[in-house]
């Protein structure tokens, strides 16, 4: 069973991503802010994390990505950023933080599905 962690401050978006990515052989976990994401990543070691950037609280998605990728215990989780921040500089900042993929909202569920299938092998 593969574990997927979905991080977004909006429930409606978390549910959309869950419906897009869930299969019978995947477990879906959810978090609504960066600090929670880091905590769950540590405890559950998910195979893949879908990470929003703009979230309330002191840890935004970029910071959470950095923390997860810098921790030897959690750095193996694949992180795909899914954000409304669509400029080239934002994308560069995402990859600089350690992300493995970058999707801009509004996104195509079909494309995301394929990308995740490919990354989880």
């Amino acid at each position: 069973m593969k574990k997927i962690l979905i991080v977004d401050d909006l429930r409606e978006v978390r549910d959309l991503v869950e419906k897009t990515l869930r299969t019978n052989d995947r477990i879906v976990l959810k978090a609504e802010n960066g600090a929670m994401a880091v905590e769950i990543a540590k405890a559950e070691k998910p195979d893949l994390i879908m990470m929003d950037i703009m979230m309330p609280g002191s840890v935004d998605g970029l910071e959470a990505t950095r923390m997860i990728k810098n921790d030897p215990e959690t750095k193996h989780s694949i992180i795909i950023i899914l954000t409304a921040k669509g400029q080239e500089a934002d994308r560069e900042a995402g990859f600089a933080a350690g992300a493995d993929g970058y999707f801009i909202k509004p996104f195509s569920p079909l494309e995301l599905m394929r990308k995740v299938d490919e990354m989880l092998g």
Partner: protein
Amino acid sequence: MESSESESRRICEEFKSQVAEPTMELVDANHRLHADIQRRSPLEKAFKQNEHRFRELVEAAGDVIWSADLNHRYTYVSPAISELLGYTVDEVMALNCLDILTPASRARVMSLLTEDLAVEQEIPASRTPFRTERIEQYRKDGSTVWVEATITVQRDQHGGPTGVMGVFRDVSVRKHIDDLKSDFVTAVAHELRTPLTSIRGYSELLLVSDDLTPEERRECLMHINRQSVVLADIISGMVEIARMESGRDLHMHPTLCDVTEQIHVLVTAYQAQSKTHVFEMALPTVPVLLFTDQERIRDVFDNLLSNAVKYSPNGGIIRVTCRLIDGACLFTVEDQGIGMTSQQVRRIFDKFYRVDHSNTAMSGMGVGMTIVKYVIEAQGGKVWVESRVGNGTTVSFTLPMAGSAQLEGGDTVEEDTHRG
């Protein structure tokens, strides 16, 4: 004795005859000169008139027309400079032109000048190339102004640079409009992305997913439907702002009302919703009667209170006061939140300007404070903001008391009657 007298007379005569010829020549030359002056005088007069006309043209221009030498000293500046920078012509002539540019603009101008002055070429006078650059200059009072500078290098007949001349035009207003436009695009892009994420995502899911239960399908459709309503609301908000802007059509329905009661009801409702914040009220004990549009004033307080809650992430006290001063009513809404920089305060009433883009939870088109300003000013009031980073924000506004508003109302009625 006698011989010496005749001797001196002889010398005198000789001298006279010697002087006579040059004197004649001088007189002649004088005549010629005089004729020459006579001939030139109309030319000179025309030349002077011409110069006067050009000087008048240059000095009447709203733009600043100037020339400078290669040491960055002005050799001529038209008087419009006082309007633009607050310096007199004499003051600015004593300055180095580059010293009154902001560091970024200075660097830009330096590199352009170096580039242009390095070129040594013959250029037909009729086709002197010029550059147009937006630069930021310091005014005498320390504030800055955006200027569109058109700059041309002056050259001698060998093509070597002898100086620089050009025109400055105040483009602060244009720059401000550009900023507004960019805020608008950012705000709209940000506000549209969230509803569109649901609409695109859930509709595509419905199209490609076979394993959704009937309830889930219904759920997807509900999200799509609800977010399309959000999009419609965004459009309504934009239309509302445009209507307020035009100033024609604010739809005020003033009635006589006790504003303290309204504040009380609204603040109590906010306190019930937000457990993290403490709401305090300091209101007069007697009813405060205002002739005002109740619904609009409720919108104003709603905007101010929701901002106070939104930008005080760690809770704290939110205080609402009302005081009577000189025939007006002064209201304040004060929080202990994150506050704003002076730069942010300056732009707070600009439409589509949002102080914080950092998270989706802080949604909004950045039009709340713009609407607040329109509503208050439309009723003869004033609104202002004081804030410091980390030290909370206080929004104050005044509204005229019922007495004065009623008087104005009475005047209007009388006028109407006269027109009959």
